């Protein structure tokens, strides 16, 4: 078995174990009103759970990768939420130089198990169905693989802040975050600063009352500014850059179930060196509240 095959088999075994963990009755009640890719404020009340199962395709010049991930959230209080997300399976490690990104702004990066605390430090309800709120997100991650992009990968931290407005007709969030990895044996993945903006709308056709299905559409944009990786104590000169993506997503909610799908396309890419150009990101999310 060659080295790559060995790594894939290792990943598959890990995924199988994580699938089993994912099937345990760890309960769920999800992000609720939010976008597929961008940062949003959480919605879980005290004692509520949510589970999101995600499938994401990432297309680049070098090929298309498919990844799945599980995200579990729990409302410690109405303003403090704990989350855990972990990879289920991924083919992205088959790419020589996969893009640096998170699975979604609220998720960990590919290959990371990430635990986060989300603190809604500001909340105002100005009217029926409306709220203006801000959240701070702090997370820690551990990698499930030894190397990523040929670099030994260490634990990481992610800090993000988001503020936004949600109502029965329009939604909007803007947020920014910074992910940083620890050094491991002279190697270190470059930092990943990112910014996201989301605008949502619930057309009159979809403005039914609960418990009828609730649909909304979003326009989402993410800008990522990955910094260069360091290998053997030396920073790669042809790494890092800027990438801005934009695209639509659709969220459907019915009782304790939610489905969401979205796609992002790059509108600007300035990546250094010979890094493959990204073509698209597509994502589908299945959510369960209980």
């Amino acid at each position, binding site marked *: 078995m060659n080295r790559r095959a060995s790594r894939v088999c290792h990943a598959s075994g890990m995924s199988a174990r994580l699938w089993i963990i994912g099937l345990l009755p760890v309960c769920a009640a999800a992000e609720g009103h939010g976008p597929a890719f961008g940062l949003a404020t959480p919605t879980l*009340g005290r004692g*509520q759970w949510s589970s999101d199962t995600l499938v994401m395709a990432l297309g680049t010049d070098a090929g298309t990768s498919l990844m799945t991930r599980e995200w579990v959230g729990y409302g410690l209080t109405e303003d403090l939420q704990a989350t855990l997300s972990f990879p289920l399976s991924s083919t992205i490690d088959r790419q020589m130089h996969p893009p640096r990104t998170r699975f979604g702004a609220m998720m960990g990066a590919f290959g990371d198990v990430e635990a986060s605390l989300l603190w809604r430090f500001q909340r105002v309800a100005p009217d*029926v*169905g*409306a709220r203006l709120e801000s959240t701070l997100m702090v997370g820690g991650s551990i990698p499930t693989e030894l190397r990523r992009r040929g670099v030994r990968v260490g634990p990481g931290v992610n800090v993000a802040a988001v503020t936004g407005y949600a109502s029965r007709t329009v939604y909007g969030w803007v947020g920014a975050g910074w992910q940083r990895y620890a050094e491991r044996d002279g190697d270190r993945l470059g930092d990943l600063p990112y910014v996201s903006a989301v605008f949502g709308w619930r057309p009159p056709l979809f403005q039914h009352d609960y418990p009828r299905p609730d649909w909304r559409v979003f326009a989402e944009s993410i800008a990522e500014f990955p910094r260069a990786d360091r290998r053997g104590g030396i920073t790669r000169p042809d790494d890092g850059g800027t990438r801005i993506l934009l695209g639509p997503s659709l969220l459907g*909610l019915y009782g304790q179930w*939610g489905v969401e799908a979205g796609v992002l396309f790059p509108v600007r890419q300035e990546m250094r060196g010979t890094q493959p150009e990204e073509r698209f990101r597509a994502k589908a999310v299945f959510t369960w509240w209980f």
Partner: protein
Amino acid sequence: MKNKPVHFHPRFPLLIVLMLLFGAAGSPAALLEVEQVIWGMDCAPCAYGMQRGLEKLPGVEKVTVSLNRGNATLMLARGNKLSLSAIRRVVNEGGFTSKEATVLVEGTLHAGGGHLRLRTEGADYALTPPAADPVAWNKLRQTETGAKLTIRGRLPADSANEITVEDVAP
């Protein structure tokens, strides 16, 4: 050892019937219906969580939640001991803001602290007159204390024990 036989008084069955009759007549007074206005609830999962949380409260028979009107309506079992504070606690723990509530409450009229009051199994409400349309209030003032009444009224967001009376039925 032989058990001592139990002898009932010949009038015991009659006592049981009387206890049941008086017990029913004096059944605990309580909130019967509550319409709680909720602000900040924007999504179906929010409504689902709210409905589920309220349904778990003791004495709740049925809950309907409206996102578009921004309220939850609770139908409560007779004899429940549920308070409006407990309902509002569930709303607030859901991450939302509880505003005014309209209640249908059954209780015993009494006077205390310079107010007409309505005592239920779970709470003691101060009754206040409405700003307009004093018909219900006049009817209430003509009622003797100790009478059992059903009152429809409103409670502001910042008070769970002061009812502005809108209607009264004996």
